[in-house]
């Protein structure tokens, strides 16, 4: 198993204690394309934070590739995030004063890779995503879809073990949303990339192979969705 969570609990102590994750048990294998679905307040964001080593948990165990992720120093956590996890965010989270290629280079910069090498790698990834011509453009000169593809290139450049996508289509129109989901599907299919998508949109979830429902901090139903018929609207409907 690539990812294993055993009885993970998380409580926020802001004034009134809020028990967000109530014993999560979850296993995700390498090469899976999974979505985590839930309404807002269901604990899916918290789960994503823990999966992405952005936040810590109170009790339980979380393994990535057999490595226990617990009580890490900030430096260690940063290093793990850098090498094992690629993030795709709803709001792209590109750095505005850096060009597309510089944004894609950034994770490699924190790995200490030489300037020339990382530039070359970044250009390769941009080329793969059909953005080679946009390499020198700044994020505000690009469309939402282009920005998200730059973000995907940035997530992929370190060859992470897991790609975590947080509402990757949340800020995109329906046509672009379909394109982005197809891109993710392609990455999963061709590169055997493990992708976890967190969403509350059934259309997005339907594009994945497995849907994990989370409700009130507890994992509910886990749907096998290899046939992509989960959407209430059926396979032919658009996502939005």
């Amino acid at each position: 198993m690539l990812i294993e969570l055993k009885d993970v609990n998380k409580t926020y102590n802001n004034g009134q204690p809020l028990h967000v994750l109530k014993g999560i048990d979850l296993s995700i294998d390498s090469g899976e394309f999974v979505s985590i679905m839930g309404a807002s307040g269901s604990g899916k964001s918290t789960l994503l934070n823990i999966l992405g080593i952005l936040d810590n948990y109170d009790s339980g165990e979380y393994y990535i590739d057999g490595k226990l992720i617990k009580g890490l120093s900030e430096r260690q956590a940063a290093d793990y995030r850098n090498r094992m996890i690629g993030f795709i965010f709803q709001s792209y989270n590109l750095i505005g004063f850096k060009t597309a290629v510089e944004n894609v280079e950034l994770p490699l910069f924190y790995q200490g890779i030489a300037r020339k090498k990382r530039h070359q790698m970044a250009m390769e990834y941009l080329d793969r995503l059909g953005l080679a011509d946009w390499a020198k453009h700044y994020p505000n000169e690009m469309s939402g879809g282009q920005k998200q593809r730059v973000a995907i290139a940035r997530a992929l450049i370190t060859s992470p073990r897991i790609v975590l996508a947080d509402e990757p289509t949340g800020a995109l129109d329906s046509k672009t949303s379909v394109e982005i989901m197809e891109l993710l599907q392609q990455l999963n299919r061709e590169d055997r990339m493990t992708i976890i998508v967190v969403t509350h949109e059934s259309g997005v979830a339907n594009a994945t192979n497995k849907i994990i429902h989370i409700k009130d901090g507890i994992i509910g139903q886990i749907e096998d969705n290899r046939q992509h018929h989960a959407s209430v609207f059926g396979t032919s409907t658009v996502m939005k």
Partner: protein
Amino acid sequence: MRDVFIEIWESIRRNKLRTCLTGFAVSWGIFMLIVLLGAGNGLMNAFLVGGEGISTNVMQVGGGWTSKPYDGLKEGRIIELDERDVALTKSEVFANHVDQVISTVSTSATVIYGKKHFSGSIEGSFPARRQMDKIEILYGRFLNEKDIKENRKVVVLPEDQAEILLGNDIRDTGARLPGMKLNSNSGKKVRPQDILGKYIRIGDFSYRVVGITKTNDASNSNTVYVPYTTLRVIYGKGRTVDDITFTFHGLDSEKENEAFEEQYRSAVNLRHRAAPDDRRALWIWNRFTQNLQMNRGRNILNTALWIIGLFTLLGGIVGVSNIMLITVKERTHEFGIRKAIGASPWDIVKLILAESVTITAVFGYIGMFFGMIACQILDKTVGQSSVSIMDEQIAMFVNPTVGLDVALEATLVLIIAGTIAGFFPARKAAQVRPIEALRAE
């Protein structure tokens, strides 16, 4: 490193105005520091101009008035030193410390050459005087042993006085200081060395000019020197001497010097039937302790100026710190993203500290540059003027500039200041949680 600087440049470029405004405060601080230190140096240099040319291991003693009754005699008696005091100084009693002893007699007289003349003090002196006062000979020679032995009527003139006698009346043309060109009276100027070998009149006798010394306005070196023996004979000074000057060794601390002075004073005073501890009966000018005090004064002044300068700079540092805090606040989301994709806290701290140090250093150097220019302007204006006090030219500022050492110290100060300014903002930046990245803008 290059990447860090590119990042800093990107950040600063986005906030040109506020960076410049903040940087101005730093520039101003360093500017003030440099100008203050430069002015302080100028002031001290003006004091020390005479001192630099004088050996520090020299004591000069002269007679005074008794200030207390002793041995049945009333106070208020004049103490006149004489040759027996010279012999005492040379004797075994003080041989442990005293090296060379000379005595001088002096008088004031009118010096005449052709139609020109001046009045001044004439000192009957010894060849050793040249070493003790580090008198610089421009042309000819100083007094020698033969002059003394044969009571020769020879004279050593200061440059300025020679000029007066030759008709190049420099006093009329205004102030003149070392480093400034002589104002020549077009064409009819005679070079000062032309007076060498000529005879001039001092009082009722003719003297041959054998040497010309460099005039130093700050020290009283516009004295005319003639052989000790000559002056004593001509003016009938008898056995009295005006002062005794001697070099010494082995007195390295203020305490040792004081002890020696006590011992010396009591010996001389007792010879004149004055109280051994009567400080007014015998004046002692110890150039060594004077020099120590001068140095102490210089250090105090320097420290005070540094403190004032640093406090001025403090305003700039607080400004930079403030601006860095704002930067961190603005970039919280960005730092979150950076952390999410693998930046360690140190990576973020590095970014802020480097930016803070860069701003401080760049603007600091601008300030330093202008400070140096201001010092140069000061040097070219106030540094060249002098005030006339009792017919003597006194320089207020001499070379009011700072050296490379101060520039290096200031560089160090800037780097430390930049680090301090960046410290709290950087710590704040390092505490940004990577979850910030997930928060929509």
